[in-house]
């Protein structure tokens, strides 16, 4: 049953299995295991970024396609939900229409970019995606009447998904609409992740891997490389847009900085590389580590700085204001020691 759910793609390492199980249990039980709003928000962000990074892994890790437009698709999904909620009013129909419209817009745009630029060399495709993504980000900022410009948009989601909806207590935890909202995000992420796992382990996924390794050979066997690359781009874009929709449902706010910025694109790249490209499970580990580090490293360093206040130099080095520097060092070290990503390294050690 589990093997079938995972499409036969098991973690293939005891340590990796254990880590994935811990992450799954923590995410599944987050509202009951951790107290407060911040851990729940972190868990929701982890879920959304797992989906976003997994969709990028389909493109980069499996298809070998470098794109800088992934946050644009993420943003299309988020703005889809925001605009639908503003114009149709608070309701599940608005969420559904917004999510579907965002995903469709992402597919159409990905199809256009793919058909026009996937025939050319990889570097040109990367440049074109960068140009289109930058243009869309500028347009979103400029058309403030529709998109709210730099301020973004705030809107209402169904009341049943908000903190105002109080539903009593369960296992000592007050159940509110926010928790329902979290489980909407968690369940959608789980289903879409398993779907992506199915796609990469299907004959389509195998052809993508073949194209990544040697595109001429794949073409010479009889596969239309452009068609496969375009299909992968569209699938990846649609999933990224759905991740954006979930983000919009969770935050009840969208803005260029939270959905379209190039910083998020760099974060996605780092998460894929740290977790391990072409593994899908790498997205789970990469996104979890990255979001945890982004959220808690500053606090952790504050505590460490206080604990070492009697020592020379160390408290200064561990000053919470220096958290970005340490985050950078951690990433350099992880890429240095895990060139194939954490998942790749764990699978290699099992083979050895």
């Amino acid at each position, binding site marked *: 049953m589990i093997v079938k759910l995972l499409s036969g793609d098991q973690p293939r390492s005891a340590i990796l299995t254990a880590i994935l199980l811990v992450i799954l249990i923590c995410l599944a039980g987050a509202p009951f295991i951790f107290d407060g709003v911040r851990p729940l928000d972190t868990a929701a962000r982890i879920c959304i970024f797992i989906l976003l990074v997994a969709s990028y892994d389909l493109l980069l890790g499996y298809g070998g396609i470098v794109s800088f437009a992934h946050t644009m698709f993420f943003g299309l999904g988020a703005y889809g939900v925001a605009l639908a909620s503003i114009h149709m009013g608070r309701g599940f129909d608005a969420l559904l229409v917004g999510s579907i419209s965002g995903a469709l817009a992402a597919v159409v745009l990905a199809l256009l970019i793919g058909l026009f630029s996937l025939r050319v060399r990889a570097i040109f495709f990367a440049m074109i995606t960068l140009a289109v993504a930058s243009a869309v980000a500028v347009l979103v900022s400029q058309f403030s009447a529709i998109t709210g410009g730099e301020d973004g948009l705030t809107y209402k989601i169904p009341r049943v998904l908000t903190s105002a909806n109080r539903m009593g207590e369960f296992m000592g935890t007050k159940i509110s609409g926010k928790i329902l909202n979290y489980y909407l995000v968690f369940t959608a992420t789980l289903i879409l992740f398993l779907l992506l796992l199915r796609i990469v382990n299907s*004959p389509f996924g*195998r*052809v993508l*891997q*073949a194209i990544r*390794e*040697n595109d*001429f*050979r*794949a*073409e*010479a*066997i*009889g*596969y*239309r*490389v452009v068609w496969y690359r375009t299909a992968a781009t569209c699938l990846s874009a649609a999933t990224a847009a759905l991740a954006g929709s979930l983000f919009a449902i969770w935050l009840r706010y969208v803005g260029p900085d939270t959905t379209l910025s190039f910083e998020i694109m760099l974060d996605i790249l780092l998460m894929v590389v740290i977790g391990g490209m*072409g593994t899908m499970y790498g997205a789970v580990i990469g996104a979890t580590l990255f979001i945890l580090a982004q959220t808690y490293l500053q606090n952790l360093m504050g505590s460490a700085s206080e604990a070492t206040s009697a020592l020379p130099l160390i408290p200064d080095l561990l000053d919470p204001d220096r958290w970005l520097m340490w985050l950078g060092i951690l990433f350099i070290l992880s890429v240095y020691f895990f060139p194939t990503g954490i998942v790749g390294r764990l699978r290699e050690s099992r083979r050895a």
Partner: protein
Amino acid sequence: MSDPILSLNAVYTDIAQYHILQGVDLNVPRGQVTMLLGRNGVGKTTTLKTIMGQWTAKSGEILYDGQDIARMPVSARARAGIGFVPEDMGIFRDLTVEENMVLGCSSGPLDPKRKDWLLSAFPALGTFWHSEAGNLSGGQKQMLSIARAMAEDRRLYLIDEPTKGLAPAIVSTMAEALRELKAQGASILLVEQNFSVARALGDSAAVMDDGKVIWTGAMAELSENKDLQERLMGLSMEAH
């Protein structure tokens, strides 16, 4: 010769500023093994790559079953029934032997009977069926490369130096598999430096020099005539 499966008429191919093929004329008869011979660097590999479409012919005709395929996309040539085994093997290293074989069938699933035949021809592939192709030895990779091209029934095979650098036992396995492929009615255009294999398999031969085919005839005629070998290729097949 009547109705060849493949005909090249005055094919010219440039790679960057180099004029590699300078008017290749070649016929590949149906159901036969045609050896493409010649010294290193005379354009044999470029000829195969031009037929498959990796290099685009600057001018000339490539008639496959009477249809000019010179401007056809590579995948369309493959789907029309041309199988290509390049010198560098081109296996998918990160995929298993099984996945490589399944990928060899672009128009449907791997036929169980064909799989059985291929595994009997290349038993090593069965042993490493679930292993990553990148972990195979050089000979096994070459077997996989040829078996993958044969995974689907194709009418014409373009094979570039399949025995290069292989141990004698693997060479004879390879030669036997190609003989069986021919017995099934496939046509083969084979570039081969191993003259004993060329002699054993070849029905006809074409010798290239300086980007052109300079001699065509029966393989038996070439293998029996040392003077002709010396004149065409600058060496005797007996010496190899």
